[in-house]
């Protein structure tokens, strides 16, 4: 769908702007957006996926919200395989995406990813439960990624996102706004070393996010252009609106 949206072949994205077809009362915006944006990642190389998540999770915006990242997580890890599971279920917990990376020595890293669009978290402890119950034995090599329009994180995440035995001090919960996500993929697309497939994904995804309201502020130039085009000719009187 990213291609259809980018080339104006479909306006189905308006459903994510809360403009709904009455004949379709239930729209699974979050699941559809998850699939549209993250589905193509399954077809990108392991190194491209690693590069993407490295940039997203090391960003200033993510650090500001989540604190330092465990220092040994990224390091010089260089994966050669990557798998994506969508809505995998374990212990009654169903995260949106789980991505697992492996290198040539069999060392793994994984991301447990929870995405929100308009809705808030399912209960104040949704993230905590998810982290504690899902892949419990793999915490030392995992990060818990939360992406939302509004973060609304619980006041103190330290007891569960910082483990007592964790030698690599830092928070394993990495929260990111869609706004920051958009900012980072635009940046990634502009880096010359970014591979063509990853740059293409960044460009298409950024275009889609703009269509569904995640746009960085770029001033009022477009409006000024239209305003300047409405130049009154001498002697004409046109009133566009009346002020009360």
């Amino acid at each position: 769908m990213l291609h259809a949206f980018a080339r104006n072949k479909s306006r189905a994205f308006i459903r994510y702007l809360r403009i709904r077809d009455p004949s379709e009362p239930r729209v699974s915006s979050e699941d559809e957006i998850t699939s549209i944006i993250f589905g193509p990642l399954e077809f990108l190389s392991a190194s491209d996926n690693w590069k993407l998540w490295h940039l997203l999770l090391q960003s200033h915006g993510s650090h500001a919200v989540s604190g330092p990242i465990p220092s040994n997580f990224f390091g010089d890890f260089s994966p050669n395989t990557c798998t994506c599971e969508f809505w995998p279920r374990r212990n009654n917990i169903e995260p949106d995406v789980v991505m697992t990376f492996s290198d040539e020595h069999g060392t793994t890293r994984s991301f447990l990813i929870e995405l929100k669009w308009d809705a808030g978290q399912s209960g104040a402890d949704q993230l905590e439960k998810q982290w504690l119950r899902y892949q419990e034995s793999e915490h030392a090599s995992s990060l818990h990624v939360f992406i939302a329009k509004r973060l609304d994180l619980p006041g103190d995440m330290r007891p569960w996102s910082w483990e007592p035995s964790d030698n690599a001090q830092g928070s394993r919960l990495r929260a990111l706004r869609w706004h920051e996500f958009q900012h980072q993929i635009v940046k990634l697309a502009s880096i010359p070393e970014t591979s063509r497939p990853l740059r293409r994904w960044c460009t298409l995804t950024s275009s889609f996010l703009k269509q569904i309201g995640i746009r960085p502020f770029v001033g009022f130039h477009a409006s000024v252009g239209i305003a300047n085009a409405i130049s009154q000719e001498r002697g004409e009187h046109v009133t566009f609106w009346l002020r009360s």
Partner: protein
Amino acid sequence: MNAGERIILSGELIESIGMQVEDMASSLIAITETTLENGDFGNLRSAGRSRISYETSASGWNHTSYGISFPVMEKKRRKSIPRAWINYQISIFGGGIPTDQKGLKCIGPVVHISFWHEPTDFDDPGLYVEFPPAWDDCGIKDERLLVWDGGKLEEFPQWTFSIRLLDLHNEDALRKSIIEPMQALLANIEVAIALPADLPGLVFYTSEDQRNPGWNLIAREHKSP
């Protein structure tokens, strides 16, 4: 261009402005929340979710002003109870734009940045910025900051300053002209330093007949001569 073409373009202009105001609002929300989370508004932190409000034109066709209010409290407090509000009022036309400028150039659309004890409420005169103002108890510091109670008596002194929208070109400009001056004012830095005369978009105010009912605030692009 005939009147019909101009009307069509005017409709497109309103749509374009609406989209850009939405973009500005979402960028401001993200930057403000990050600044609060990062502890960069001095002693303040978030005390809950932000509120969005609108002022609608008389016909109901347009929003004339868009309000975003962030509840804040001191870091040391445990319970999330708002103690003050950071309010942004983006005014495109209507009452939020200074009128009756007596020969002065119109300053155009503006964003009013306030630190108040209450959130913006367009149904309650006094809880949003309008011209002529509903307040009779505000003062003006250095022609650029509206203050209440001299800005000194309260635990959280209340103030407002304004920035012209057309001088805001990107997110860096939002940081420079809105976030950084707020940080400086919250740190009690002198007004003329927190809001330097060359701050892009800064609006300068003088009052007219403040002791009489129907007094007005006069807004200028530059300091009065």
